[in-house]
């Protein structure tokens, strides 16, 4: 029975031992103070138990020195926890630049994953060991949360915007993936697994599957099919801003503001095109709300990213 009762979950990512180290530090502080209080109470309660002949206790009103002592020491310790925790948090929040980008879309009650090469998985994710993986996530309905205990990562997945999470697996194996934000009737059924493969196995897993179209390619064909290219090219039907090199650049807007063209901006420009108008252009683009799925938007974003890297030919004029 007891082998079924580990005290710490498996450590399978670069972050896991670091989170556990901080956990053990806070645990140490907590155990020390809890012990101090428990022992003191029991000791004092026994030592000063009421005796029949005892006189009334003398008044001890307080001690400024003690009050300061037990204000300052906990304050110092908690500040250590804060700084340590915050530094770790910043790392958890910021994926490395060279990470492999995987798209995760949550919907009631399943996870849809999409690899850069176009492979799609449901409630399963296969990743190589030792390579940072960045998840760009969104939801098609309510709020979900992507939680892999063995990696010590969790991030809410929201409808209408993108959130990211990242990890670098350190041990091969199959790890549980949970939805951690209550999302409706089958919330507890919205579970899956992340399989970490040795690099060679990952390669064979990739090749063993029917070669899909890459995400960027799918985005490209969607880009054509929806007719985006008829305007978003020089001399198009209607003057529209060029999308080459758009991703990550600064866009000047009507009204003097500028905005960085990140995933959120591109998504908004497709769903609600007139929310932000690029300086010098007319607000004529119709909305694609309802005409394109969340997966589709993410594919187009992948396509625009690749266009920025110079591989997406069709975006070229």
């Amino acid at each position, binding site marked *: 029975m007891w082998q079924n009762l580990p005290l710490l979950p498996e450590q399978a990512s670069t972050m896991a031992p670091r989170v556990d180290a901080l956990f053990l530090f806070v645990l140490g502080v907590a155990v020390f103070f809890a012990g101090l209080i428990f022992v003191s109470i029991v000791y004092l309660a026994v030592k000063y138990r009421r005796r029949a002949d005892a006189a009334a206790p003398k008044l001890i009103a307080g001690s400024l020195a003690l009050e300061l002592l037990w204000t300052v020491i906990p304050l110092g310790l908690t500040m250590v926890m804060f700084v340590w925790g915050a530094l770790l948090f910043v790392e958890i929040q910021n994926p490395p630049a060279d990470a492999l980008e995987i798209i995760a879309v949550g919907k009631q009650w399943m996870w849809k994953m999409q690899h850069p090469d176009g492979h799609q998985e449901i409630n399963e994710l296969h990743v190589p060991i030792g390579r940072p993986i960045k998840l760009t996530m969104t939801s098609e309905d309510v709020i979900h949360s992507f939680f892999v205990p063995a990696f010590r990562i969790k991030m809410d997945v929201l409808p209408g915007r993108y959130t*990211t999470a990242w990890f670098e697996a350190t041990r091969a194996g199959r790890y549980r993936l949970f939805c951690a934000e209550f999302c409706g009737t089958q919330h507890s059924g919205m579970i899956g697994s992340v399989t970490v493969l040795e690099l060679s196995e990952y390669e064979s897993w990739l090749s063993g599957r029917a070669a899909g179209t890459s995400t960027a390619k799918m985005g490209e064909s969607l880009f054509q099919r929806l007719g985006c290219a008829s305007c978003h090219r020089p001399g198009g039907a209607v003057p529209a801003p060029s999308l080459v090199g758009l991703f990550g650049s600064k866009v000047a*807007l009507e009204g003097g503001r500028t*905005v960085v063209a990140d995933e*959120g901006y591109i998504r908004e420009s497709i769903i609600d095109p007139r929310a932000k108008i690029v300086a010098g252009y007319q607000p004529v683009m119709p909305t694609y709300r309802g005409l394109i799925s969340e997966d589709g938007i993410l594919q187009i974003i992948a396509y625009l990213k690749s266009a920025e890297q110079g591989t997406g030919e069709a975006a070229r004029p």
Partner: protein
Amino acid sequence: MKSTPPISVKSYVGVFVALLLLTALTTAVAFVDLGGNLNVVAALAIAGGKAILVALYFMHLRHSSRLSWIFAGAGFFWLFILIVLTMSDALTRSGFSFAAQ
């Protein structure tokens, strides 16, 4: 016991006229482009001034106990906490269009 209120009818009339004038002013200013966010600042500053006039004179806060001041202030202080901390998130969120400068 109060036999006469501390504020005279004359000062009530004064405050009343001032409130009407400020209302006219804020409406007029709204049609002028002051540039940037100055229109919002002006509108809220005038509204704040009007609110202070109402509170001090019509609500007699000026002659009220310190305790009334504290609770009147507490409401707005807590509102300030709510707005500032929430907007500190909304205006610095990444991956969200609020990040637009």
